[in-house]
């Protein structure tokens, strides 16, 4: 299967779990390349949020603390930067500061902006995968370079029982090229 099709299959798999809820901007409406991957997810599982990246991330952590399995969507790394405090200081550190008592499990979807056929310029194509690996002690960051990596990555993110959250990094250009 192709990159986009695998992405859709992975989202349908996640949606099948009663704990999941998908939140972000252009989640319940069109707007980004990721929106199309949610076309087969029921409307009740999609929570369209205002543009509040920091609040969105914190809300995802809170939803996870209360038993949900949130899928927190930022279409580009550059947008996710606005939520760094909640990712690095809170989601990543809560298991540590609580002695393992709190283990919120959030699935974060983000992406490296596509450069072809249009280059959106330098505030939209950042790849901060390695930087986040350096900043995070408990969150695992998985980069999806091939279509066959997609489903196993999201399956692992949902089913893992080690108390860790996952940042899954997609590549915008591969939606059309792989």
């Amino acid at each position, binding site marked *: 299967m192709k990159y986009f099709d695998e992405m859709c299959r992975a989202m349908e798999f996640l949606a099948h779990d009663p704990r999941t809820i998908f939140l972000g901007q252009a989640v319940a409406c069109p707007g980004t390349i990721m929106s199309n991957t949610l076309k087969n997810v029921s409307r009740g599982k999609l929570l369209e949020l205002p543009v509040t990246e920091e609040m969105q991330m914190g809300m995802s952590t*809170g939803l996870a603390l209360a038993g949900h399995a949130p899928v927190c969507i930022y279409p580009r790394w550059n947008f996710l930067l606005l939520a760094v405090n909640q990712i690095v200081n809170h989601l990543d550190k809560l298991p540590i500061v609580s002695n393992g008592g709190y283990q919120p499990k959030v699935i974060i979807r983000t992406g490296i902006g596509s450069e072809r056929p249009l280059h959106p310029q330098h505030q939209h194509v950042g790849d901060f995968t390695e930087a986040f690996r350096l900043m995070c002690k408990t969150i695992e960051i998985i980069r999806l370079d091939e279509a066959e990596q997609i489903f196993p990555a999201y399956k692992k993110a949902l089913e893992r029982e080690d108390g860790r959250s996952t940042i899954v990094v997609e590549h915008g250009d591969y939606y059309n090229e792989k």
Partner: protein
Amino acid sequence: MTKTEERKAAVLPGSSGQDVQPPCAPVLTAEELISFETEIAEAFNAGKIRAPIHLYYGNEAQMIEIFRDIKPDDWVFCSWRSHYQCLLKGVPREEVKAEILAGRSISLCFPKYRIVSSAIVTGVLPIAVGVALSLKRRGETARVHCFAGEMTAETGTFHECLKYSTNHQLPIRFIIEDNGKSVCTDTREAWNQPALTYENSRHPLVAYYKYQSKYPHAGAGQRVQF
């Protein structure tokens, strides 16, 4: 002051005003709360705690009143200053003390008692909103109580969280604790604003009280050589 008098000493908005269920723990007296902080201050000054502590003082009556409206299943979110919340939510005194002596005063978390704290300004606010959203979606009766200092309450994150919670009718209230300072910065002077945004408001999701502490932002007012 008797327990009843302490409860009546502070009238706070943002409270349901209902006494249907008992509070989450036997109500502690102001003297018991002060005594706990004094004990921690002495331990800190004696060099027994090798991490920051942030002590409360002067807000005991208000805190006791606030916790009259907090039930065992409710969630409580705090900042770096949270000893009173932990005690009043029902965490045993020695358990709180052990965590403080272990150096974790700044971010006390007690999952069994649904207490979450963060040492970062505004850190718990959106997390509290997420828990409140979950409670509403699941139809649970528990509520969320989120404490914030007056400087935190002036931030954009606070504004967003309060707006979202209000517009989506989430089961949450924000308790703003105004000691006039953020570390050593005078909040009103820094914002050039004599009256802060929520201090005279009657917002249904906001409780607001002022207090004056005898303790500094961190530590117990004495230089400690380790």
